[in-house]
């Protein structure tokens, strides 16, 4: 278990720990069941090919969940995710690494909260940022109480 990150620890430019995922097609089926997204391009290869895809592709929302995990892993138990947004810029395939990276880009206090804004993204093995995003997290401060 990693130690809690505090607002004072988060430096602009600091990188979040990297998270690497390589979902299997079985995982895509689990995600379809858990999310209710049964679009066949995510588990039926014939269907995907018929839709002009090279094969089954990862749900954009699953890759988004990976990006969210990188943030929630970093922010710790006392961190609170306030805002999170992503764009869908590229497709991803199962059995390939999806690497989530991020860095702190801004920090400020607002409404009594200590807010840290991060740029985060998922990358495919070719280094393309398939899911670029931003997140705002409220972190605990050593100065309260």
């Amino acid at each position, binding site marked *: 278990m990693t130690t809690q990150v505090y607002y004072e620890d988060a430096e602009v430019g600091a990188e979040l720990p990297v998270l690497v995922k390589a979902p299997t097609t079985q995982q895509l089926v689990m995600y379809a069941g858990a999310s209710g997204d049964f679009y066949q391009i995510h588990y039926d290869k014939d269907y995907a090919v018929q839709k002009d895809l090279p094969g089954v592709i990862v749900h954009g929302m699953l890759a988004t969940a*990976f990006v969210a995990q990188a943030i929630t892993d970093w922010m710790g138990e006392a961190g*609170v995710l306030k805002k999170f947004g992503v764009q869908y810029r590229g497709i991803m395939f199962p059995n390939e690494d999806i690497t989530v990276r991020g860095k702190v880009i801004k920090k400020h206090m607002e409404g009594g909260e200590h807010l840290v804004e991060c740029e985060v993204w998922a990358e495919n093995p070719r280094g393309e940022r398939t899911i670029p995003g931003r997140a705002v997290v409220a972190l605990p401060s050593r100065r309260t109480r």
Partner: protein
Amino acid sequence: MSEPREVPRAVRNIMGKKYSPATHDIEKGAIRRFAEAIGDPNPRWQKEALPTFLCSLPAEGDPLDPLLKLDHPYKRRLHGSSEWEYSLPVRPGDVLTVQNSVADAAMKPGRLGAMLFVTTETTFVNQTGQLVAKQRQTIIYY
């Protein structure tokens, strides 16, 4: 037939449309299965829903295909973006009311010519009437 350069009337007519809300019981097991599907072992999700869990709660009006029931000329659809604002945690035992609406539609120049960007909004309100989260999705038609 080429795609229109202006927001089609059928689309202008649904701007601001609010669909019927749906209620969902937030279940610990459903959250656990979602976390397992993502491969996120954080024990926090035993007591709280993970951030993208909200997308598993459907309601009338598909936020990923807002033009579904309309007569429109677009052959293709892309999911452009998703954004969430979280106000309160969502916990097992909560009952959420989910409501979709069409927030905006605009033509924007894209790589493939004029493309229609439709933004939908989804609100999530808990059993005490508090807004727990808001979601915006942009879908691109071309």
